[in-house]
């Protein structure tokens, strides 16, 4: 079903074309369009971020416009959570997470919860400052029980490596799952250098015997920009079978050395599921002729002062189940990095200049061009021998099962 909704391939003919199009629809924006982004996670810390919608053309290519209202001048945001037993959970703002954090670690899943957000805005009018306060609230939210993650599997179809999960809901009936995950993987650069450039003497020297390569093992983490949604409606049993969580090519360095995924499963109500599904569809149009036209969706947050105002976001309350899985490098298909090696032309630039440009010597290498076979010392970009230069971190996660450093 999801597949049907997601893939209605464009039925274009031979002569159809897709062209880039810059939106020119004007910036009719409601200054008041607020985004409330958060989930009440029972058993963990809940994070709620309060943001503003920004014009389409603004920093369209950067993609990281966060517009956190709590950091915005003139705005004061406060968040609190209440449960049906009358308890209040205050939130404190964490600038590193760019979100208000609520301690719901020991919250009970038997109660209902309600989120309140208050935004005070300083308005300057008629020579004076005044404060405009708006309150936003959700209805009472039932806590949904997260599905049990039965297994996480890794397989490949030859080109892609897929991480799939099996999960099942503990209750009967239609279930709607949401999977979030964190990936952490260890990788190393394609080459280990046998030579190094000594800046002091300006010479290329072989690596000493006892040199330890401390830029060989690195770790990286990533979180997805879209969570995986799964619905068991219409299926024989309320199970997610081989639900695809993530996939990446076999040449990606995720599966080079060791890969770990921390899968978090959550449950949604039907309305929450449909909200998010429509949200993803609206944001990922494929241009197919038979695609559903985008439509506005209403979340479950209302503004007390103006019930007709649009508030973006849907808040759910759910327990979380996590499971971690590891995968070694058995599926890794190393891309060919050899083309990164090159013989520098010392008549063109000195080794120092190459070094200053970010290249590093690697090893002796034979490069064949046409009929010419040349064996000489080859250089490559720094990131080909230095995993930190390639973006990795030397901080090894505590749970890492090997002794690499």
């Amino acid at each position, binding site marked *: 079903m999801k597949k049907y909704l997601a893939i209605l391939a464009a*039925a274009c003919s031979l002569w*159809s074309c*897709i062209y880039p*199009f810059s939106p020119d629809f004007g910036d009719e924006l409601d200054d008041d369009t607020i985004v409330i982004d958060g989930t009440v996670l029972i058993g963990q810390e809940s994070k709620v971020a309060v943001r503003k919608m*920004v014009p389409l053309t603004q920093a369209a290519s*950067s993609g990281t416009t966060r517009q956190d209202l709590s950091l915005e001048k003139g705005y004061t945001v406060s968040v609190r959570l209440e449960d049906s037993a009358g308890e209040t959970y205050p939130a404190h703002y964490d600038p590193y997470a760019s979100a208000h954090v609520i301690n719901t670690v020991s919250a009970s899943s038997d109660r209902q919860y309600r989120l309140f957000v208050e935004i005070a805005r300083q308005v300057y009018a008629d020579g004076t400052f005044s404060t405009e306060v708006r309150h936003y609230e959700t209805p009472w939210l039932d806590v949904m029980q997260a599905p049990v993650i039965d297994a996480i599997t890794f397989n490949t179809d030859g080109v892609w490596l897929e991480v799939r999960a099996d999960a099942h809901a503990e209750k009967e009936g239609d279930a709607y799952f949401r999977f979030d995950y964190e990936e952490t993987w260890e990788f190393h650069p394609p080459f280990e250098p046998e030579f190094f450039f000594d800046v002091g003497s300006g010479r290329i020297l072989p690596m000493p015997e006892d040199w330890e390569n401390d830029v060989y093992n690195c770790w990286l983490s990533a979180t997805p*920009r879209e969570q995986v949604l799964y619905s068991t409606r219409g299926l024989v049993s309320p199970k997610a079978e081989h639900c695809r969580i993530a996939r990446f090519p076999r040449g990606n360095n995720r599966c080079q050395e060791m890969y770990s995924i921390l899968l978090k499963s959550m449950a949604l109500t039907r309305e929450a599921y449909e909200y998010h599904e429509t949200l993803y569809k609206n944001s*990922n149009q494929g241009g197919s*002729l038979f695609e559903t036209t985008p439509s506005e969706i209403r979340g479950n947050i209302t503004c007390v002062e103006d019930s007709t105002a649009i508030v973006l976001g849907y808040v759910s309350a759910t327990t979380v189940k996590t499971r971690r899985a590891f995968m070694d490098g058995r599926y890794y298909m190393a891309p060919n990095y050899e083309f990164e090696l090159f013989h520098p032309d010392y008549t063109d630039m000195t080794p120092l200049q190459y070094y200053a440009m970010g290249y590093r010597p690697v090893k002796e290498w034979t490069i064949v061009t046409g009929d010419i076979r040349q064996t000489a010392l080859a250089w490559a970009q720094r990131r080909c021998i230095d995993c930190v230069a390639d973006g990795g971190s030397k901080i090894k996660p505590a749970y890492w099962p090997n002794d690499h450093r």
Partner: protein
Amino acid sequence: MYYICNMKRCLLLLAAILLFSPLLAQEVLEESIFSKAAGTNSQLFRGKVVNRYAFRYNGTYFWSPSGFEKGDVMYNGKLYRDVSLNIDAYVHELAARIDETTSSIYLDRSQVAWFTKGGDRFVNLRYLGVEQAPEGFFQLIHDGPSPVFLRIDKEFQSSPGEKDGEIIGYHDPDYDPDVITYFSQLKRFYILKDGELIRLRRMRDLTGLYKDRKKEIRRFISKNALGGRDYPLERLFPQIMAFLDGDGRPAGWFAQHTDRWHEGGGEGFVPSVSGQVIREDSQRKDLAAGFFNPETEEISYGSESDQQVTYQNKVYEIGVPVDGKDAPRGKVTGRVTDSQDGLPIPGTVIWDEKTSTYVRSDKDGRYSISLPAGENMLHFSEYTKEDLHLRIIVHGNGGLDVVMPEKITTLRSAIVSAESMASHRTTKMGLERVSMKTISKIPSAFGEGDVLKAVLTLPGVKSVGEASSGFNVRGGASDQNLILFNDNTIYNPSHMFGIFSSFNPDIVDNMELYKSSIPAEYGGRISSVLNIRSKEGSMEKVKGSLGIGLLTSRFHLEGPLAKGKTSFIMGGRTTYSDWLLRQMPKTSGYANGSASFSDVNLGVTHRFTEDDILQASGYWATDRFAFSNDTTFRYRNLNASLRYTHKTEGGGALTVSTGYDHFYNCLEDGDQLIGYTLETYIRQAFLKAGWTRVFGNHTVGAGASAVGYGLSGGDLKPYVFDNEVEDADGTVHREKGITSVEAASLATEYAIEPAVYLSDTWVLSDVFSLDAGIRFSGFLTRAPSHFYGGPEFRLSGKYTPVENFTVKAGVNTMKQYIHLISNTSSISPMDTWKLSDARIRPTDGWQGAGGVYWTVFDSTVDLSLEGYWKRMYRYLDYKSGARLSMNPNLADDLVETTGKAYGVEFMAKKTVGRLNGWISYSYSRTFLREDGDRGVAAINGGAWYNAPYDKPHDLKLALNYALTHRYSISVNVDYSTGRPVTVPVGQYFYQGGLRLAYSARNSYRIPDYFRLDAAVNIDPGHYLKALAHTSITIGVYNVTGRKNPYSVYFTTNHGNQIRGYMLSVFATQIPYINLNILF
């Protein structure tokens, strides 16, 4: 030959029309005989038999170019001698006239037994008892025990013909290659043997009848060096027959069959026009004294009928010269009566040619006109009667009573411009009729004469985009059009997502689109009715055609099963477009795709008699397309119908039809885990009966219909897969099984839609007529049982104050019980159809429209201006985020909306001449608004929003220019405002990625649409001897190559960055070539 349109006359014409002078209309009407609509509405208009065709043409419509010749005619039992006669072989009437200067009149064919002309003998076989003979005259070329006849018919063609070619059949000294109309000749030979009339096509047919004497005949032929390819049959047949008859000269057939009439009965009789025998025992020129009552100054309206006039070839003397001298002026008075019932005819125009004065007869049919003395020509004309032209000599005051003869309906209609003047004839507004000939000239993608593309060039008809399979009429949704093909309902009128229509152009005869003024016999949809009829197979000979194009091929074959009685027609089309898709780049995702369709038509017509016809029609079509490796769409149409027509006397008809429709859809998703097949179908059976009858000024129609529906909302089954899978380590194993989708199916909905209707077209006077209809339609569903129903009203009126100028207005209400639910921008075959039930109410609508129609420039250009206002109630739209497929509670995801639409359409159409076609412009708006009150959740918060097909400006041009009779150029221009879309208005970061926030529904527009197509059509040469005619169309679709956007869409690429794209379906010029072979 007359050529009317020189400048002076044109101005005169214009002045005359403006002065409301209907008299000059006589000249104009002469063109209109070839501008009549094909004759289904013969009650609303009567053809006028004219003796002059006032436009340019090559050739002649007479039997031969020899013109009027003296002869004798046996008419109504009396022999008239020495009459100038000529045969109009176009309508097969016998024309007679006194002398060169008088106008000629047609004799009543049903009274003509035989006549001679210039030494040739002609007979009216029907009159002489040969029942099987067609109506009309036959030349007796051999008189013997088995007479042989020659029959010549002239047909009107819209090409120049050939100067000395066989097509015209004679040398035409006035041939002008710039004139693209001519009369072509059709020669047929018959022999009457043993009481049976047998057609002779070639020598073989004759020898076949005399098998035992075949050898003799052959010897005779070779001995006398007869025959050979160019030897005319009209010489060959008589010679052979004379040989066969031998020297004994047996009694001729002619003498035997005509001996019951005898010569005599007076001399100098001139035939009467209306069939009444006028015995006049005086001579032609001199009138006996005392024949008239001597008149004084007094006008006498007395019953003393001075002269009762019904015939025209006589000179009437008004008054008596006093003392041998004429008075300076004389008053002619008299009474005009109907030949059939003797009743007076008011409103007859009596016009004098010399002084151009005219009067009208009063309510008692009396008139009085003052004329100068001397010779005059007096014309009597009345809309529903035959015109009379009388030669008079005015000596003084006198009386002249006139009996107006009936108009003779002509049965034939011209091929060209069957569409022009239709708007003046009918009360129906918003009716567009297009013939297949016109359709084939409109360029379309991939070169096929496409019915739907032709529909889209008409004003008021729009589509959402090039890949849309539906169309929108006057602001109505796609599912609000009832598309009928030979009475079968077609649910998906196109193949390959809108590129080809479901109708094979070789099979289609014509189509009618009712945009407003929908006749009461139709119902069930609220916006329009598109009625397409297929051709009857040829009753005479087998013929067919073959079309080869870049993407599709088609063929058709038709012919008689029993000559003159039963015929068949069949056609088929198929595509081979897969090869094109494989040329596409892999990254487009379509390289592995396939799209194909094929369809087959079959029709059989059986004529029990001329008035009883049975037609059977069948249609089967299948479509399939797949664009990703996983998903395949398949759908099928199967339709069958049977129709019986019985024509009653007086122009009525009784029609009974029944049939079955089946529309089936299948979506197959081959995903190994959650793949499925989803099948839906609609089954429909109908029974209709209709009856029309003419009662005086009323044409009454009544009828009833019942349509039964069985609609399956969906049958979902897990996908069954069985494939070989290769693992990462290279081993291959077989995987079989079914996916984990749970089988489900929605209950089949059943319903029946009965209806009865009553309609009347009432011609109140010659300028005003009214069309009223009432239809009661109902809808009864089963399980749970629910009934909807109610009356629908159709009312329209037409007012023609002046010739060629008509004003119409009308109001319609309609009901619709079946709905198409769609949330995609293009109508996809997987959209859901739903019957009304206890929770889903039917859609109602009403439309008011008015229009003005004017035909100018000698009836060559039709101008029309129509405006409409429409309201739709309970039109179903989907809620945001609705789930439309396999939803057992679909009503929960739908809302009722109210729609309003209004617009103005202007069209100028030219249907005759070298340049023909039409240009139209329309401005129209359509808005929807959700009913009920869902507060902020309502679509657009409950405010009016643009309907997805709201395109305010629309300009269309469809032109065809005939360079010569073989080459013509077609140009098509389409411009419209961009359609409304819902676009993002902002972006925000949510749950880890970028998301788009959308505007109110349909509140922005994509850029405007403009497209120009051009094509060159090369028609077959007129080489009759060629076995097959080929015609070629070469064209370019989208000449300017404009990348007309179909839609704009945005993606964040899964939360990363926002990109906007514009999708064009045909983004470049598309050349095409199409080859058609007719055999």
